[in-house]
């Protein structure tokens, strides 16, 4: 187990280095950052001076390792546009994105687990069919369009909810639903499949034969086991959701790091984009690492393989 943990952690680090390296070269291949910093009025000499000052005249891999070294120390450079420290810009807004992601995944779990359980209790019943119907519809609904439709109905027509901002709790209602429903079909299907399998197992029959109440069998014995893979999948989805937050935050003008990355891309503000890619990638890597280690802990055979 310690060897396995070490190996997986090492691989996770390697992945982050490759991802950040790829993004770094991609963004530096694109526009000349010196032109972005200099602005439109900059003369040729100004551009040359900026290149020297920021070190853009060095080979790209040296620039990358330079950036990486500082990034590991928490220094992500300065925004070209806002002239602020990127670290401060990201840390100021990351809480909103985390809050949105957490609320969205909770929403998805709160909808999908009861629905999946109900569907599994009576396969092919009306409830099962309705649940499946919701899942199929949900999977096909474009997230950003769903968000726009909610804005029109609840924000513009009925005026129930604010359509932009991040200052009050009501600002998070529509973004949470828009982001959360997308994970619902996958989680619901997994709950249903897991519950059907567990409910058919021997220990459930034993529990029923002992004369336990149906509720106790369902919640204490069945759901507890079926829910483990669902929670693992939810962790992975949480990582995906942070990525999905770009569109949702932009639509609702909820100024988290998803919105910030959109804003930075519009302005070719490379240091900000690189930092946010690294943040998203780190989240995904850490979450999958934790899920893997948890699985290995629960099933020791995995770490031997």
């Amino acid at each position, binding site marked *: 187990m310690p060897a396995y943990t070490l190996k997986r952690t090492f691989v996770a680090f390697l992945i982050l280095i490759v991802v950040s390296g790829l993004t770094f070269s991609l963004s530096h291949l694109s526009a000349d950052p010196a032109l972005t910093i200099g602005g439109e009025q900059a003369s040729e000499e100004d551009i040359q001076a900026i290149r020297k000052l920021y070190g853009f005249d060095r080979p790209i891999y040296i620039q990358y390792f330079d950036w990486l070294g500082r990034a590991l120390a928490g220094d992500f450079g300065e925004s070209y546009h806002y002239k602020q420290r990127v670290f401060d810009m990201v840390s100021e807004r990351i809480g909103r994105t985390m809050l949105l992601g957490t609320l969205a995944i909770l929403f998805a779990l709160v909808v999908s687990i009861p629905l999946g359980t109900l569907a599994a209790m009576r396969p092919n019943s009306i409830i099962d069919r309705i649940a499946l119907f919701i899942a199929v519809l949900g999977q096909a609904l474009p997230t950003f369009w769903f968000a726009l439709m909610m804005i*029109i109905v609840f924000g513009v027509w009925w005026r129930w909810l604010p359509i932009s901002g991040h200052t009050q709790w009501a600002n998070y209602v529509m973004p949470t639903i828009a982001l959360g429903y997308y994970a619902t079909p996958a989680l619901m299907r997994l709950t249903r499949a897991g519950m059907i399998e567990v409910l058919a197992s021997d220990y459930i029959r034993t529990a029923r034969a002992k004369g336990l109440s149906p509720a106790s069998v369902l919640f204490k014995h069945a759901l507890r086991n079926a829910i483990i893979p669902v929670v693992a999948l939810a962790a992975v989805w949480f990582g995906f959701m942070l990525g999905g937050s770009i569109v949702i935050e932009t639509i609702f003008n909820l100024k988290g790091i998803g919105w910030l990355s*959109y804003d930075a*891309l519009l302005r070719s503000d490379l240091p900000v984009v690189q930092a946010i*890619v690294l943040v998203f990638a780190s989240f995904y890597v850490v979450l999958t690492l934790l899920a893997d280690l948890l699985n290995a802990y629960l099933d020791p055979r995995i770490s031997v393989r």
Partner: protein
Amino acid sequence: MTDTGAARPLAFRQRQTTEEILEPSPWSKLRRRILGNHSFLIGAVILAAVFAVAILAPLLAPHDPYDQDLAKRLTNPFWHEKKVDPEHILGTDKVGRDYLSRLIYGSQISLLIGFSTMLISGVIGTVLGVTAGYFGGRVDMVVNFIINTRLAMPVFLVAMAAVVAFGASLTVVILVLGLFLWDRFAVVMRSITMQARDLDYVKAARAIGCSTPYIIVREIFPNVLSSLTVVATVEMANAILLEAALSFLGFGVQAPTPSWGLMLNEGREYMFFSPWLLALPGVCLFMLVLAINLFGDGLRDVTLERER
């Protein structure tokens, strides 16, 4: 070989005929399963309709999708009482282009993106997955690392950055999505190839000295084909949704191309007074993706039952 029924013993022939009577042919069984599978049927019908619309767009569209008429800006669709132009059933957009025609031509863009992306990512993912699954060991370790690296990349953000880097156009969007959406292909192909590698007839082929490429193409590949098509439908739907989202944010297909995502972007400022400018392209997207998903789900059920 002249192995005709007449040359066989009578008893065998009789047994065969009774079997033929009792058991329907594989094709009729397949047909029955297809007809009994509602989601497959509904999906296939909608999908065929969208295809027909895309191919027949020049005949179906009442106007040129690029034709602007500033005198007829933002006319209302037919269900409104005021400001309706009978020439434009679904009204016009902010520069007076016929909305129905743009929606019709939009299907071409979505299908083009879906198919091209699926082909590119399908080839990359299948090659990686089958190689990893067949050879195992170090090759598998390397491919696994590549897959995990890809999964760790925030696709949407990196795709936006790539579009900024290489300039926004249909080709760039297709290439970027194609180079990103192969992960599911690789993961699924890898695990199926691993199972297929240990099947008896694959071992037999190896034992009689068949070459590795021959085994992969002739013995392994037919096994992965049905899962491959199912993953292909999922990724096609995924690509269509991602393109729409990219175009919606302005990092995808550029104006004046009639892309549904771009139409949503353009309609956004008229959200308050002309909400149908937002509703209609979204409904088209939703229907297309729904059809592809239903088709894929149905395909999985139909082919899996055949394998059983």
